[in-house]
């Protein structure tokens, strides 16, 4: 069994009417594992489902509402902390979708608060957040130095009182990645949500989500990110998107994201061999919620590092991490 069961239920919620108990158990376990249970609950809505399922979906909706409320409060706190700096604070990912009331935010699991600020302001932002009660999570000097030198974000911070993480980005991909999206343009064209908080323009939202899914990371939990992309593509002008994606050097990734979103959640698309491999990775989840195709997953894990840094640097990085006792799972 693969996560196609979950993908079909999201694409066409009417099809859940045909599920038996085993099908429901599988669908729920998959949706939880992919952090799509809140989205699934909203997609199914008021369609008739067995009583046990209704209770689970009601819980999931309440959890999603709480997630959104907490995420917005966190964004509000960050805006307050950074108010004196006179900077645009651009919300990214889940918090932005929830704050702007986008369809991608409905029922979405929201983990950390992700914000984008100009690179020149990083030190100021860091100090302002520390003054407001955030503190460092990583106590390893190598990790800290690695983030500061090579990553697209500061090392993660956590708020001492509220126990919530913030990721402060200054661009959307690690500095060592082959693509170099134009973060300054993203900030310049950002749209206001409130007086202090901004979000990326519609085309940049897709570019960022596609970069995050396909040019970075190992695609774990990627079905959720692809669902975001599917929702973000709704109503967008394909020509404007294409121009914007080329400007960020993300044309290939955005086109692939469009094909995958259409193939899995939409009306279908012609897939390349590489698309099919990525799709197989995305769907590698069984009816117990376990990740399957471990070898393929490991290959994507290796790829994520390959994308992030040139070979000599990668070798040095892996050696340092190995000495510290880190092992890939």
């Amino acid at each position, binding site marked *: 069994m693969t996560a196609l069961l979950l993908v079909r239920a999201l694409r066409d919620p009417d099809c859940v009417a045909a599920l*038996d*108990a*085993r099908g*429901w*158990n599988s669908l*729920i*376990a998959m949706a*939880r*594992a992919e952090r799509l249970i809140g989205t699934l609950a909203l997609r199914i809505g008021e369609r008739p489902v*067995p*009583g*046990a*399922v209704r*209770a*689970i979906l009601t*819980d999931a909706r*309440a*959890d999603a509402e*709480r997630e959104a*409320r907490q995420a917005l409060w966190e964004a509000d706190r960050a805006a307050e902390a950074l108010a004196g700096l006179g900077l645009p604070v651009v919300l990214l990912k889940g918090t932005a979708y929830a704050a702007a009331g986008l369809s991608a935010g409905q029922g979405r699991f929201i983990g950390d608060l992700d914000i984008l600020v100009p690179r020149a302001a990083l030190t100021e932002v860091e100090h302002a957040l520390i003054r407001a009660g955030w503190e460092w999570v990583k106590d390893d000097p190598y990790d800290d130095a690695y983030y500061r030198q090579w990553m697209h974000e500061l090392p993660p911070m956590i708020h001492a009182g509220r126990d919530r993480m913030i990721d402060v980005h200054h661009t959307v991909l690690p500095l060592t990645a082959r693509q170099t999206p134009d973060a300054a343009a993203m900030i310049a064209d950002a749209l206001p949500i409130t007086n202090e908080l901004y979000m990326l323009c519609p085309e940049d939202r897709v570019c960022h989500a596609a970069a995050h899914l396909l040019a970075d990371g190992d695609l774990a939990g990627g079905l959720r990110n692809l669902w975001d992309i599917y929702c973000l593509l709704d109503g967008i002008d394909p020509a404007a998107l294409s121009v914007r994606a080329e400007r960020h050097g993300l044309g290939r990734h955005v086109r692939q994201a469009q094909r995958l979103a259409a193939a899995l959640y939409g009306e279908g698309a012609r897939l390349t061999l590489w698309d099919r491999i990525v799709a197989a990775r995305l769907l590698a989840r069984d009816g*117990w*919620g*376990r990740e399957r195709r471990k070898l393929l997953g490991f290959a994507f894990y290796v790829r994520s590092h390959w994308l992030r840094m040139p070979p000599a640097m990668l070798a040095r990085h892996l050696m340092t991490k190995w000495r510290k006792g880190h092992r890939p799972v």
Partner: protein
Amino acid sequence: MNHGLSLKIGPATFRIGSAWRQPVEALARLYADYPAPADGIADFTVRLEPAGPFRRWLRPSIFITGDHGLADAAPMSLAHGLLAAEMGMNLQMALGWRRHLLLHASSVEKGGRALVMTGESGSGKSTLAAQLGERGWRLMGDEFALLDLETGAIFPFPRLVSLKNRAIDVLAAEAPAGRMGPLLAGTAKGDIRHLLPRSDAVERMNEGALPALLLFPRFGHESDVRPVGQGEMFMRLTQASTNYVALGEPGFAALTRFVKTVPARAIDFPSGEEAIALVDRLWAEWA
């Protein structure tokens, strides 16, 4: 997964999958009288997986996970598979249950009213509840008490009682051998043996009761009874709840009502017999 079992404990239903036969067999034997989920659909999936690539066969070791899991959970020996399954179910409840305010507390019922006991591990709340459950009370649960958000009633979660170290002999002397599980020696918490609750606890697993008394037991001290103020009660119960924050305002309202309506006492006792005498006295006084 290779081996599986579904069961209902109080209001919650579980689907347990295991890479090995033994944990599921042990569960099936002890939970034989528990019902299956009504329409075959479980609230939670629990998985007992090999802790590494070869750990199914070679020094078999269990990684406990499921819908909700902890990435850094310590692996467990297959010999402790029954305990692993229990911990897997507890983990789902602690992290995922939203339909009641979940209190880390034991509870027993008599005459339609519930006695709730909360405290740290080792306070004696579990042993005391198990003993009361053998002596005319209905055992509602030794680990979690479920506070209903609307009615304020306590609902049972009558899973197997987990007896640790000295408590094993205490209960083995009172309960028939047929209701005792296998001895799990040398777990992270010492020796553990499970006790199947009496049949009334299982048959009435859907039946709640209004709370009449809250106790904070403490084993190993001279007998003593102290009043506990509402503020302290509230703070200690928020610490004893795994989903207080997740429930938001309804959780706050339910806990406030509980604190305002239920009398509370802290009790110290040097032995089980004295504890039971204390409970009987306070129950007669307050309930």
